[in-house]
């Protein structure tokens, strides 16, 4: 039995620069393991340890997905091994292409009981890849998952649901997107980082036919975000009472209070 965690090696848009024409430049933003993926890996590690399964990480993206830095950063989180498609044709791929390529990697593994993902990626943040991946595989998908236990064909899944929670039973393979706070991921220590060097990362070539099954998206134009004009009034708060009085007067003048 295998437990698969789909992860993303991606830059944080906070470190990107945006041109006056809305072009986004990620050249100075360093990619890293996407922020919610450690939660999915931790959830997978605990399930694998409890069930004796192997924990396999899968990822797709540009060449840097297979870089030594990425391998070490990801494997030190607790994966037994990783399988990636690292092809620059997938750099910056949209959700649908990413999911199609991920599905090809998962299909190459046998005996997969569950695919776990993070809540959303740090860069695109669409929360769609787990649902698209499930559809590619013909499996059901559940999101906001807070706990999972059991073995292949007999999984118990708990998820946040309409302010409460829900317990579900899955008798077949399923894609589960972890809630952002499902578990607290471990921080890799020196031992984990050294062990990561010994664990393998295999590469799978991009299947052009599978990638071509998703309609191409043509970027017509980009633009900077539409921001409301703000007044930009800065009030010195060193005298708190005076600052409060000034602010209250301004908000009253604007009829906001």
């Amino acid at each position, binding site marked *: 039995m295998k437990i698969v965690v789909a992860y993303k090696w991606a830059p944080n848009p906070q470190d990107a620069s*945006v041109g006056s024409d809305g072009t986004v430049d990620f050249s100075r933003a360093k990619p890293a393991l996407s922020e919610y993926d450690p939660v999915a890996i931790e959830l997978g590690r605990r399930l694998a340890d409890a069930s004796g399964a192997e924990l396999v990480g899968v990822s797709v993206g540009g060449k840097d997905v297979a870089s030594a830095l990425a391998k070490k950063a990801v494997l030190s989180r607790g994966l037994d091994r990783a399988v990636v498609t690292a092809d620059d044709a997938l750099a910056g791929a949209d959700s649908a292409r990413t999911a199609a390529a991920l599905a090809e990697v998962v299909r190459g593994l046998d005996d997969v009981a569950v695919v776990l993902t993070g809540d959303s990626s740090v860069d695109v943040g669409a929360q769609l890849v787990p649902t698209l991946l499930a559809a590619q595989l*013909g499996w*059901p998908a559940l*999101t906001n998952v807070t706990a999972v236990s059991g073995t292949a064909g007999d999984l118990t899944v708990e998820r946040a649901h309409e302010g409460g929670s829900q317990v579900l039973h899955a008798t077949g393979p399923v894609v589960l997107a972890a809630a952002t706070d499902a578990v607290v991921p471990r921080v890799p220590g020196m031992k984990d980082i050294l062990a990561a060097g010994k664990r393998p990362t295999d590469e799978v070539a991009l299947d052009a036919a599978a990638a071509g099954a998703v*309609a191409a998206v043509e970027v017509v134009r980009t633009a900077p*975000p539409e921001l409301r004009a703000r*007044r930009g009034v800065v009030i010195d708060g060193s005298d*708190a009472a005076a600052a409060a009085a000034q602010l209250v007067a301004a908000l009253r003048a604007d009829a906001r209070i």
Partner: protein
Amino acid sequence: MSTSYLLVAGDARIETLLSLAAGSTTTAVVVGPRAVAETVAASGVDAVTWLGEPGDTPLEAYAVAVAGIVGAARPDLVLASTRPADRVLAGAAAVALGAPAFTMPTAVAVVDGGVEITRSVFGGIALETDRVAGPAVVVVDGGGLVASADDAAGAAEIAEVAAAPVGTLTVVETRPATRAEVDLGKAGRIVAVGRGVKSQDDLALAEALATKLGAELACSRPLAEGLGWFTHDRYVGVTGAHVAPELYVALGISGQLQHTVGARAAGTVVVVNTDGNAPYVREADYAVVGDLYDVVPALTEAL
């Protein structure tokens, strides 16, 4: 005329979907209880396809059936809300159509049999306009309920289609919410707190201000997801609530774009921050540069 399919999983709040589908013939595919299908039918759609009572099957298990319906119809545009089960239906429909799926749209148009969409990208730091030759799937905050027409004659007919859900998933137990979720999207005033508040006890300062203003309390992401001081429904940001209050007061929030995107539609933005160089100071209507532990009590007092 172009055709749009609206995918609805158990929640009839589809105001935004309908407005994006304006001008096209709309079919809603509804999974969940019949009452939801009836509300949707009275919302102004042209037709409703209902997949029957779900029983103890989670709505996500209908994704394959919904994908079959959408794949056969090949509409120009598919719309779904960002709610969890709705997203699963949208993903399945996109794969059935071989279509891309987009989020955070600001404008969507069917043009020459394809779709042109303008959307926020990378958490809202830029806008991108894309063109797809075929159909596209668009996932967007569903908005509110649509006021239904009073006369039943105005409602669309509900066609029940027997659909087999994926048989591998069952709901074992549902534990209802032990508290009411807050809908920040409806709040007229919001007081939001961030990492500038040092301990959970100090939230009392913000609570006092919120009470005085008649505002809802909200937070930036670390307070909901890392510290757990707030429940997720009070988190404003790119993957949380997107709010549009008349007055938004941000206390101790530096203004990283992942947060400000969620409050971009606010009428007046007030920021209290010790750091005059914090990004939010430049993006505020009024920024008080000072210690919130002094400024917030003074402000509560002055109101």
